[in-house]
């Protein structure tokens, strides 16, 4: 803005910039630093990066933690498990979310506002509570099993909790609103005359969907997929509360390394690899997101 002056400008930009540099960027660098340290018993529980002895300063960095990640099957399986769980959740959210977003976009006036409000409400309520709510439903003697036994569909309780099924269900349930909102954003700005034109030219409804609607809502699909995939990969609460012994997800591995094994360097190395792995989908989706912002 004109006339605010150099000092004012410096203040407006500088204060939040400095804060983020100090409390977001610098901490990430510290993680990288500690990921090349060795774990020791004591405080701090890792070796310093630079040591000083009679010969002068000495750089003390090791790639042992990363070698451990590469050699121990646990970590590789946890990374791949997270990716597979999150990818499946993304696809399921897309399949479930698209019709819902479409139906909302077709609603009018106050009805549409109400539907949007209902989609956004879970986003404001406690994530922890929403995940926890499923335990009572999925338990061996929980509501769903009791109901199924009650109506005579099954004789013995199904194993619904503490396995892959419950983790996947939890992921889809928790992240569905994150998919619906960007899809709705794309669908609500759709130019209806294009759809009518395609229909007038003789395209069947399914063909209209594939040829016109789907390509035009790609930015929404990309944004929604990113908002589901990325947080789902690093998820901790869902695999911890709904997962079982066979659930391996990297967010939980990092948590356990830190809180249970108290191995800060390995936890840091897990974090560094995770950030690097997440950069791939983020950069991939940016292309579509930039286009969406330009539109």
């Amino acid at each position: 803005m004109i006339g605010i002056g150099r000092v004012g400008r410096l203040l407006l930009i500088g204060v939040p910039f400095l804060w983020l540099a100090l409390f977001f960027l610098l901490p990430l660098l510290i993680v990288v630093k500690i990921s090349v340290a060795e774990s020791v018993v004591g405080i701090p529980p890792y070796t310093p990066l630079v040591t000083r002895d009679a010969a002068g300063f000495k750089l003390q960095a090791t790639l042992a933690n990363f070698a451990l990640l590469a050699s121990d099957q646990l970590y590789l399986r946890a990374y791949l498990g997270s990716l597979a769980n999150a990818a499946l959740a993304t696809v399921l959210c897309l399949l479930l979310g698209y019709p819902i977003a479409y139906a909302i976009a077709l609603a009018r006036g106050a009805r549409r506002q109400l539907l949007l409000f209902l989609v956004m409400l879970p986003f404001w309520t406690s994530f922890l509570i929403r995940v926890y709510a499923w335990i009572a439903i999925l338990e061996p003697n929980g509501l769903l099993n009791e109901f199924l036994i009650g109506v005579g569909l099954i004789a013995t309780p199904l194993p619904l909790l503490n396995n892959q099924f419950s983790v996947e269900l939890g992921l889809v349930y928790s992240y569905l609103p994150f998919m619906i909102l960007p899809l709705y954003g794309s669908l609500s700005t759709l130019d209806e005359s294009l759809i009518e034109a395609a229909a007038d030219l003789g395209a069947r409804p399914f063909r209209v969907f594939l040829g016109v609607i789907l390509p035009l809502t790609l930015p929404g699909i990309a944004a929604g997929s990113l908002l589901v995939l990325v947080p789902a990969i690093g998820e901790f609460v869902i695999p911890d509360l709904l997962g079982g012994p066979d659930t391996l997800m990297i967010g939980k591995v990092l948590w356990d390394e830190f809180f249970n094994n108290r191995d800060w360097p390995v936890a840091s190395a897990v974090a560094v690899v995770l950030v690097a792995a997440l950069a791939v989908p983020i950069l991939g989706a940016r292309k579509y997101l930039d286009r969406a912002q330009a539109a």
Partner: protein
Amino acid sequence: MTLTRGIRTTVLLLGFAFLYAPIVLLVLYSFNASRLVTVWAGFSTRWYGELSKNEGFRAAALTSLEVAVLAATIALVLGALAGFSMSRFSRFRGRTLFGFALLAPLVVPEVILGLSLLLLFFNCESWIGWPSRGIPTITVAHATFGACFVSVLVRAQLAGFDRALEEAALDLGARPWTVLVRITLPGISPALISGWLLAFTLSLDDLVIASFVTGPSATTLPMAVFSSVRLGVSPEVNALATLFLTVVFVLVALAFWLTAREERRRRIRG
């Protein structure tokens, strides 16, 4: 597309049933006299009584509220400044890095945000003896990611803001700071209100980051709830969740209603 009314209604009913059934059941069973989920032993407010006697939950709730109010307020100031800078200054040194640092915390997993901040606080404490881990460190952590959410909302609102109003005020002789405070700030007030509320609820809800950066002195409500539900379903937590959901519902409905009213007014004026 030819989606019939029937299909649309079915889709919406099924979708919202999926989203809301667990929450509705949880609220329902908070009034169950029995400790068991599957046994309905009649309506009772017993668990609300037990909850009010639970000192651990009460202390944790107070800690969470204190952190959330402080963090949301800091986040509001930082996020408004950041959103304004990004939207109004198209060129300055480090703008790309700044933009990255504003958006990345929205997608970086909480475990990483938590771990990295803990390492910072830990190092800081051993170098300069400050800060001791607890309420201050959780507040700083929550303010940081809250500010990023606020900045997104402020940027979105500024993008649709009529610059002619500011220019008119400048032409009429108002000083730039006056214009900022009297024209721009009220203009983005819906984003500021919803931004504060969002930062507040995010802080109130956070388990992972707070668990990393806290010390032995401070337990937040999600941490207390988490250690309790790890052992299984607890009717007291159901009661607590119901209270929490009620408060959130009222706040969000109020924010929605305010924004809708504001928009209606604008449409009439415009």
